[in-house]
């Protein structure tokens, strides 16, 4: 019977119920979208890094695993690295960011292709210095096709080919042009080495370290991929915690307000229940159950909405990837439920403590 009362109470004020459910849902969506974006984008970078086909990566001294946008190494190093005993192929790239989430990469197309082995869905390798290639995902996002003009670093480029994603960057430009346009002539950002045999990756890393000394961060690709985790990205974890904290406050306030107005509105009804012999715990239980229903339905709505945000983010110009993080469903729902229940405690106690006689005379 108490459950029926809970449901009828929620149905009695459909707009308030819907708004509260939406607010709880948004709270869950906010958490799931942020976590899905963090993990999705990092996983996407991982996949694309593995797709380069390299076994070892050499990055500039003092560089972090994430966020590289400079070219401090000499391109002459590539030839030196190619001579290491167990290196089969060596190539390099120059990295520049277009915005917070997207970057473009300059490469020597033939050399890079030998390692990465591009597979084109349209067009092919550039033949001229004003041509670039982009991946299918980026092409769809920007609605561009082979032969179209695309502006990067204030220059119009012709799209020569659209390749299957997973080859490092999403946009590849001619290295020489990028070096010149960014005043980095003769400079590169990353060196990629392919070992003669995959099991020699560690050996190649050791050889490179011996040659370059300890100041250069040198990783096998698998080591580098393992660094692409939420824990390793500076500020991502604190940022997630801040968003979770804000969502708790948000959920708490919304439910607090909703339940507070519900209690004020139902003063007389609470008096009736008390006259019928309902204890303060019984009254509190009704409100907490109502809140739990709002929290659970809101969480389910929030989870469903996450599929919507994923669809919207796919259309964003930035190269963001959101995945559905199933592990976080119970966590985000739990957070929303706890915040909602906390929000219901004060209104619930107010209701439970209400004087029955005053409540019964409330107009």
């Amino acid at each position, binding site marked *: *019977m*108490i459950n029926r009362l809970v449901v009828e109470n929620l149905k009695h004020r459909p707009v308030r119920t819907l708004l509260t459910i939406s607010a709880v849902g948004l709270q869950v969506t906010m958490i799931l979208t942020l976590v899905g974006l963090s993990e999705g984008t990092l996983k996407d970078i991982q996949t694309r890094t593995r797709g380069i086909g390299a076994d070892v990566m050499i990055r500039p001294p003092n560089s972090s695993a994430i966020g590289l946008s400079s070219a401090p190494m000499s391109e002459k190093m590539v030839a030196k690295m190619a001579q290491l005993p167990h290196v089969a192929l060596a190539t390099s790239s120059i990295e520049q960011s277009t915005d917070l989430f997207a970057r473009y990469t300059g490469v020597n197309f033939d050399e890079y292709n030998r390692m990465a082995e591009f597979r084109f869905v349209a067009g092919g390798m550039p033949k001229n210095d004003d041509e670039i290639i982009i991946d299918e995902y980026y092409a769809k996002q920007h609605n561009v096709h082979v032969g179209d003009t695309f502006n990067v670093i204030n220059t119009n480029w012709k799209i020569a080919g659209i390749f299957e994603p997973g080859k490092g960057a999403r946009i590849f430009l001619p290295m020489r042009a990028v070096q010149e346009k960014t005043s980095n002539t003769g400079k590169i950002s990353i060196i990629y080495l392919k070992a003669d045999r995959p099991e020699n990756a560690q050996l190649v890393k050791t050889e490179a370290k011996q040659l370059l000394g300890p100041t250069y961060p040198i990783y096998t690709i698998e080591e580098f991929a393992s660094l692409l985790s939420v824990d390793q990205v500076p500020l991502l974890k604190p940022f997630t915690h801040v968003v979770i904290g804000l969502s708790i406050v948000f959920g708490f306030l919304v439910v607090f307000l909703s339940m507070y107005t519900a209690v004020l509105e139902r003063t007389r009804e609470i*008096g009736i229940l008390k*006259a019928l*012999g309902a*204890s303060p715990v019984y009254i509190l239980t009704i409100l907490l159950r109502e809140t739990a229903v709002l929290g659970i339905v809101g969480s389910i709505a929030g989870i469903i909405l996450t599929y919507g945000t994923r669809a919207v983010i796919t259309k964003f110009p930035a190269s963001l990837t959101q995945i559905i993080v199933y592990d976080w469903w119970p966590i985000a729902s739990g957070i929303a439920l706890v915040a909602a229940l906390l929000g219901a405690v004060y209104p619930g106690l107010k209701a439970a403590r209400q004087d*029955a006689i005053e409540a019964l005379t409330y107009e």
Partner: protein
Amino acid sequence: MSNLIISIRDLKKSFRVGEVDVHALRGVDLDVAPGEFLSIVGPSGSGKSTLFNILGGLTPPTSGSVFINSKDLLAMSDADRTNLRKEEIGFVFQKYNLLPTLDAAGNINIARAIAGKNGEWDPEFKELIRLLGIANRLHHKPRALSGGEQQRVAIARALVNHPAILLADEPTGNLDTENSDIVLRLLKDLNERLGQTILMITHNPEAAAYGHRMVHIRDGRIVG
């Protein structure tokens, strides 16, 4: 005292309204036998509602002695008074006080649920529903019921747990003459058929005449 369902001696009740002490009851003595239909008549401010609230366990007495079904109200904690409302008392209010979100059956069943009872209504109660003439109105919400129907649902709710005492506070105060007569006749009928003890507070002498006995209250005292 053992053959009385209510025994009140020198009952006093004072409370503070703002900065003023109000002496609502100034020494009430009253005995009620089981199965009695007692009308308590008095003007506004006479203390009849305070008496109703004390007997219903909604507020504690200040001093004196009040026994309901041999239970001492003065010795009761808040929780004890909550149990008293649940087990011994059924309320009928002037404004019906049905929960607007539940239908008539829901309003009756919530009283049962609070008392920890579930399942089907017993045959005796089903007969009562028939007697009250609300059998075909059980799935309507209060807003779809007339005042008279709402009050009859409220009577059913008050009696669903078979309380020792039915307290009715101006049960016809919001009803027209026709519906007032129906409700009062029903109360009398219930008293006679079921032996239900009823205390009815009213300021209407015609309504009070339905009881076996009438007591008058004025300025916080029983005056006759």
